[in-house]
């Protein structure tokens, strides 16, 4: 039976191995944790399948003539809708499965773990975006209109930002609620609630223009965004992402791990 010897190796090795876990390593681990569970792997597979389906259907539709920028928006949508769930689960599954007992025993500085989760969600969005760009490019020869490779830099940036905003929304909801079911339901129900309420209550339709993140983030997929549009987006991001994230960080830092 080989049992770990408590004795140390050479001091040099020991010192190196006792340095704190660097943030990039923590981020890499968090990114891996998003994909290595059954639910995570399925979710990613579904996102990939939907993205391919969207691209395929759009390029096979006879009268659809897209340029790069036009096709990119629809391709990004499945990821923008479903990857936030992964962001939610990245935070909440640890608390509901009590895996925090292990996570915070290995890395007691909870803010570092939280930062790594946010960075991992950003990395996930960037990777997904890269995949979407590839899928779009691959479909262009079939779907392309007269100027298929037309992709303004602004459109390239905004579609990526759209994905980032959505994934961060998931992380923020997860962190403030620390409960998978609640956070996921709220994430899906909130835009519906906004649109229903906005139609029924006329007084709400005005604020909805500024506070309904599903509407304001949708502006990122429009060809042109005015300064007012950016202000609307900024407001709803502050309310639905920045504020919950800040509250969530406080909750995570204070909550007793059991």
């Amino acid at each position: 039976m080989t049992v770990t010897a408590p004795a140390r190796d050479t001091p040099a090795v020991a010192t190196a191995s006792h340095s704190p876990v660097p943030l990039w390593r923590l981020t890499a681990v968090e990114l891996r944790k998003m994909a290595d569970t059954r639910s995570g792997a399925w979710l990613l597979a579904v996102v990939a399948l939907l993205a391919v389906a969207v691209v395929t259907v759009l390029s096979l539709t006879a009268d659809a003539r897209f340029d790069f920028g036009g096709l990119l928006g629809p391709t990004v949508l499945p990821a923008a809708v479903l990857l936030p769930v992964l962001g939610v689960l990245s935070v909440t599954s640890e608390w509901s499965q009590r895996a925090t007992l292990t996570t915070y025993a290995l890395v007691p500085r909870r803010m570092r773990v939280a930062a790594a989760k946010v960075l991992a969600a950003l990395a996930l969005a960037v990777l997904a975006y890269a995949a979407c760009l590839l899928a779009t490019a691959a479909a262009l020869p079939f779907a392309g209109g007269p100027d298929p490779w037309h992709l303004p830099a602004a459109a390239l940036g905004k579609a990526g930002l759209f994905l980032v905003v959505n994934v961060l929304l998931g992380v923020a909801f997860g962190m403030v609620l620390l409960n998978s079911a609640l956070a996921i339901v709220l994430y899906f129900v909130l835009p519906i609630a906004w649109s229903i309420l906005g139609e029924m209550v006329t007084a709400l339709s005005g604020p909805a223009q500024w506070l309904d993140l599903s509407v304001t983030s949708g502006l990122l997929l429009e060809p042109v965004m005015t300064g007012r549009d950016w202000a609307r987006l900024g407001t709803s991001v502050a309310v639905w992402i920045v504020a919950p994230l800040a509250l969530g960080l406080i909750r995570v830092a204070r909550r007793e791990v059991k």
Partner: protein
Amino acid sequence: MIEVAHLTKRYGAQTAVDDVSFRCTPGTVTGFLGPNGAGKSTTMRMICGLTPPTGGHATVAGRPYRQLPNPGREVGILLDASAQHPGRTGRETLALAAQLLRVPSSRVGELLTCVDLPSSAARKRVGDYSLGMRQRLGLAQALLGEPRALILDEPANGLDPEGIFWMRGLLRDFADRGGTVLLSSHLLREVEAVADRLVMIGNGRVVAQGAKDELLSGAGMRVRALDPAALRAALATAGLSASPADGGALLVDAEAEAVGRAAATAGVVLLELQPGRARGLEEMFLSLTNGTTAPEGTAR
């Protein structure tokens, strides 16, 4: 190596842990004993910086746990074997920890072998594991960073008798190589078999602590004769005080030799002569286990 000083935890009016102090030194296994709800897990979580204490402090390797740069390389923790993501395979669970601790991934395989989880089991998801398998996985995770100390909460739960025997050997071996082990249990017998030192708590307070041998001995000799009356007379003649024990035996407050000589002088046939079990400790433990977990004991 592990030092606990006046740790206290209150939840509202209820005191879960009340002024608990003890220390665990390298080369020893410390058994942390107490009935369910006595405050063992809360104390261990406070040691590991997971639960903020109301008062007192704890250090591991001379520092508060949360200030250890890479704690997994210093101390292996297993607080709850079930606290793992069920959708991850056993091997992946270890691989993640290995990546964090910066130990070579080959150690994952070594430890799976060490804790006797075959590769077929390691490929399964933790959600499909029995409690015993989770304990083995948790122990592997605790050992992964080649720590010098182990903190294990009820590690024998769910293990079969063979598994318990195996784990005792592993912990004994770890301590004999200079490691420090703190393990909790609600079973006196289980801890007795492996621990050098015992810390017993009830209702959040330490009720007894010290070297196991000291705590468990000191109860004199247990002696049983063919003719109990003759034995009692013989002991009285020799000036030894005796009290009745279970099974018709007597508990004598004297060395084995003195008891043997007294019996031999009187020609009494002995059936049994052995160190008496520490009835004090065992009775204390039983009284802790019986009903004193009720809240009135903790309310002050």
